[in-house]
């Protein structure tokens, strides 16, 4: 039996149904990351788990026990709010220790815990300030501190790092990972950061409009998206989803990509998924991630199925560690990720290598994956 089980959870605000039957299970010590477009219901889901919103129907069980009717203060949950929700009348130290105080932890112990967490979060010098005297990131860290200082059954984090600088965010991410590894607590975590999602999660739930689109391990989600939405949503820059048709190339299938003012590209598929043959001659969506579409020098040397094609480069976007190039295929802008030093000019033609082992295909009608 899983530790956290959510069964057919529904929630309406007035007329609008915000959560439309969520089913999720998380093992003890698991790390569930909720991702999804803004407004899809992630915060609402966390709130229902915490007991801060009533649910319309469905059940939430923790450790086999239904907690639907349990008061939030009895659920033994720590939560970081997206809006911080710091107590304006208390100092940072007061904010952090409030939860412990409520649970009757002795003062000396509280002080120790505050000091420890303040060190981790680098807010030691702010302990005596009021929230109104803090910067955005500092507030967020205090909100984190309030959760981390406790030892609950379940952590709920709602975009806890969104206002931190990249460096601190990495530090905090590692800190959360360490917390998770050492204490083995169970965590539900909302983030918009791909890296956070991929590196922290043991399970990811991709949500959309109050429904879970795919629920699986990070690798499953990244490499085997079940539908167009998940494929499009996960990964940054996003997967290129190119309208294409399936042709034949000898007795193997091939993917035909239209180009502007040039003959189409015909990519031979060495090991196409079984379902693809049914689409011969029909339109499909061809999905390839930017990192699987690169300059031949940058391409993986031992990938089994690489096809190279000349592409017209429209935009070049150097981004420090990489350079992104945009070409046009199948009527859409397609992003390729090249090495940072790739010597490439907008307006020129350049051969790009397609790593077809990584390609995925979708049925444009159902938007589902063709397997």
């Amino acid at each position: 039996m899983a530790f956290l089980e959510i069964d057919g959870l529904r929630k309406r605000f007035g007329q609008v149904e915000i959560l439309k039957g969520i089913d999720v299970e998380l093992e003890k010590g698991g790390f569930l990351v909720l991702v999804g477009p803004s407004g899809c219901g992630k915060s609402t889901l966390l709130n229902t788990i915490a007991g801060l919103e009533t649910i319309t129907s469905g059940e939430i069980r923790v450790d086999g026990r239904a907690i639907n009717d349990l008061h939030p203060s009895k659920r033994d949950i720590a939560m970081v709010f997206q809006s911080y929700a710091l107590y304006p009348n208390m100092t940072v130290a007061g904010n952090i220790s409030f939860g412990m105080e409520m649970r009757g932890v002795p003062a000396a112990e509280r002080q120790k815990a505050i000091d420890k967490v303040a060190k981790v979060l680098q807010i030691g010098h702010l302990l005596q300030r009021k929230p109104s005297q803090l910067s955005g990131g500092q507030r967020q860290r205090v909100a984190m501190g309030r959760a981390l200082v406790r030892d609950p059954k379940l952590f709920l984090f709602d975009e806890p790092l969104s206002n931190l600088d990249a460096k601190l965010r990495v530090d905090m991410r590692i800190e959360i990972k360490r917390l998770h590894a050492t204490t083995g607590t169970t965590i539900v975590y909302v983030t918009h950061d791909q890296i956070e999602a991929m590196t922290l999660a043991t399970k990811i739930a991709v949500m959309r409009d109050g429904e879970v689109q795919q629920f699986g391990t990070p690798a499953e989600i990244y490499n085997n998206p079940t539908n167009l939405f998940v494929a499009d949503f996960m990964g940054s820059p996003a997967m290129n989803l190119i309208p294409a048709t399936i042709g034949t190339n000898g007795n193997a299938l091939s993917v035909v990509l239209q180009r502007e003012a040039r003959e189409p590209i015909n990519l031979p598929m060495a090991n196409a998924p079984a379902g693809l043959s049914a689409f011969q001659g029909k339109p499909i969506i061809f999905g390839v991630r930017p990192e699987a579409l690169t300059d031949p020098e940058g391409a993986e040397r031992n990938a089994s199925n690489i096809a190279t094609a000349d592409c017209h480069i429209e935009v070049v976007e150097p981004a420090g560690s990489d350079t992104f190039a945009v070409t046009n295929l199948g009527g859409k802008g397609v992003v390729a990720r090249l090495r940072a030093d790739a010597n490439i000019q907008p307006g020129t033609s350049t051969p790009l290598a397609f790593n077809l082992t990584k390609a995925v295909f979708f049925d444009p009608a159902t938007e589902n994956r063709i397997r």
Partner: protein
Amino acid sequence: MSAVTTPARQASGGVNVKIINRIVIYGLLALFALFYLMPLFVMLVTSFKTMDEIQNGNMLALPKAPTFDPWLKAWGETCVGLTCAGIKGYFWNSIKMVVPAVLISTMLGALNGYVLTKWRFRGATLVFGLMLFACFIPFQSVLLPMATILGSLGRFGVTLQNSVGTSFGLGNPTVNLVFVHVVYGIGFTTLFFRNYYEAFPTELVKAAQVDGASFFQIFRRIMLPNSMPIFVVTVIYQFTNIWNDFLFASAYAGTGDAMPMTVALNNVVNTSTGVVEYNVNMAAAMIAALPTLLVYVLAGRYFVRGLMAGAVKG
């Protein structure tokens, strides 16, 4: 470095406008201060005049021969009924009654406001509406039924006294007044707090719930510390209303020992015949109002700006 000194001068046009603005604002404030102070001024100068000067002089003129006697008389000599020991003795009666009444009604109001905004239940609005409308009941028409009930409670108190040994304050005029003022005060206190808490971020209550705080802990630790301005307003309101109440005070506690300040003051001021000692009356009135004035000045300091600033996004 030169940049540090120049800007103020460069933008002097803006500065001028600012200064004019300030002058206008302070001017208006001062003007209104005059308006508000006028009667106080009249009362003050009168309280330092002799009766001759009051009868023959201009009401607004400063006292020609200021005398402190009226104050001394009001404090320690003037007659309230048949006892001529000034009004000093009635402070304690009023304070004994006002302080508990204010505290109880304010706390109840705060709790009610808290429940009505942060723990909404079906019908909460109706309950609030009913309590609100209660503010409008004319006190004249509750005077008698309330007296009847208080009388019965008093008799019950005597029974208790005889059987249990304590009356739990039932029948005690001070307790009666506290009760009456609480009953007719909670409508307002609830209104004040409910409307203030309406804008109070619910997120904070949620956060505290997650932190394990109970209903009352949230109230005490989160709501109350953030309610200072409205607390001040409510206390001021209740304090003045209860302190200045005459109707209930005279009806339920007019009897010597428990007589509150207003009844005493009224007995000083509203003498039916005889020469009206305006100077003593004014002095007495000001002495009687001292606690309220004190509350205003002290409480006013707790109007602090920006309690909530930056607590919550959106």
